């Protein structure tokens, strides 16, 4: 750890040649975010005779991860959304030269006095659930409503036509299951077949899709204010309903459907999203994206199992993710598909 601190101080000095006496203290690896090694630290330096103290976050590429992601995409999401007023940390440096910390990394502002909720906690927000829930859905609506070109993000992401959003995403995650499954997956496969038989209409608009917008991936403070939306590494252009489908998943609410993420009532959540985004939700299309997200979830957990089993990454969270969320998503998807199958033949 001391080695990382010393080397990172040298990096900061290199990036800020006008300052002197750069020091790094309190370097501590944060738990979670299995896709990256995340450290909090405090950097100090002297600038114009004044001592500056800056709490920072260092996100370093892992050797292997739960999700194979692009660091540039996450960093560029912060670059694009920070000036819009959406609560995201200020991005500071992106570094791909391996000489500094052996692996690429980026640096951003540390959001202090805030915490993330856990999807495995029955009541992650306590008395602030309503207040946080309203912000949660309003912020997601603003992400959906943003013009990717106007915020300078479109060029960093792969373009997709409105009619192809579903096909591109489904193909991506089906491929993950094809490549990583350690045992046959009858429920996930049935889900994939249902999705192909019942394609949604073209996206109402092409939006920035966060890709992992849920409890656990944002910070909030004691006043019940969301202070940072994090973990943008699966961000892409696509149908804005995709993010809603993921955020609504019963996986994040102890399997309860009525209060997604343990925050506010589902219908109220969708109303707030529509108001903030200016997009009307097509309920049939939303059902498609909800089922898609169950399959996507299973693909992620299946991939985690493969990672752990192969020995490339023995982080305990990968074993846990491949047991508990797989169990929950399989059960939720099985019930959903069984109901749809019976309804179709009634």
């Amino acid at each position: 750890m001391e080695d990382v601190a010393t080397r990172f101080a040298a990096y900061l000095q290199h990036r800020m040649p006008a300052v002197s006496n750069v020091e790094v203290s309190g370097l501590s690896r944060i738990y979670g975010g299995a896709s990256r090694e995340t450290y909090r630290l405090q950097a100090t330096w002297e600038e114009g005779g004044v001592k500056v103290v800056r709490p920072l976050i260092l996100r370093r590429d892992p050797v292997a991860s739960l999700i194979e992601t692009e660091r540039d995409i996450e960093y560029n999401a912060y670059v694009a959304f920070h000036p819009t007023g959406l609560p995201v940390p200020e991005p500071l440096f992106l570094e791909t030269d391996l000489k500094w910390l052996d692996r690429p990394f980026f640096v951003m502002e540390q959001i202090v006095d805030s915490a993330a909720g856990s999807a495995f906690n029955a009541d992650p927000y306590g008395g602030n659930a309503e207040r946080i829930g309203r912000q949660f859905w309003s912020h997601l609506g603003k992400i959906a409503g943003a013009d990717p070109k106007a915020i300078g993000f479109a060029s960093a992401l792969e373009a997709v036509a409105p009619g192809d959003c579903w096909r591109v995403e489904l193909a991506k995650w089906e491929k993950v299951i094809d490549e990583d499954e350690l045992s046959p997956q009858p429920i996930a496969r049935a889900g994939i077949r249902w999705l192909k038989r019942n394609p949604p209409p073209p996206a109402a608009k092409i939006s920035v899709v966060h890709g992992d917008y849920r409890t656990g991936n944002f910070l909030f403070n004691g006043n019940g204010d969301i202070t940072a939306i994090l973990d943008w590494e699966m961000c892409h252009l696509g149908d804005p309903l995709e993010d809603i489908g993921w955020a609504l998943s019963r996986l994040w609410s102890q399997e309860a459907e009525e209060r997604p993420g343990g925050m506010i009532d589902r219908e109220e959540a969708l109303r707030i999203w529509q108001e903030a985004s200016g997009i009307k939700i097509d309920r049939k299309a939303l059902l498609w994206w909800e089922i898609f997200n169950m399959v996507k979830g299973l693909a992620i957990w299946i991939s985690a199992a493969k990672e752990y089993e192969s020995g490339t990454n023995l982080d305990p969270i990968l074993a846990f993710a491949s047991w508990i969320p797989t169990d929950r998503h399989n059960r939720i998807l099985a019930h959903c598909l069984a109901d749809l199958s019976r309804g179709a033949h009634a």
Partner: protein
Amino acid sequence: MKPQVPNVLRGFVGTLLTEILPNLSAEYSMGNAAVMCQSLSVIADEFERGAEIRFRENEEMRALFAEAAKIVADKGLATRLLDASTGRDASLLISALDRSNAALASLLIELQVALEGMTGASVHAFESKVWDYLVTAADRRKFTLPSFG
């Protein structure tokens, strides 16, 4: 093994939670230890029920295949379903049960694909039976996470 394995695993969780975790200072280590506690609790349940769950799933899939062999139009698939329906689990090792479970689950996927391409009330009724199995099997595998709060 006495004391029984689930009791030992739950005892380990208690020791981790009350003696080891409070003495850890690194946030990342604490997070790992907490996840290992949750995982050990799941393993304790699975140690007791793992063979039973797999054995029952395998028997239930074989029973479905015996019935499906009379319904599916594809003769080759019908023969394979019938063959699989007469199998038995000769070993109760989890690894052996997992192997036969995987082979049967793979055939179940083929069966569902075939049924989805067919029409008729009896086919739909049997499709529903397959879903009954999948729902029951998924429910049976449910893990209950302990609350450490």
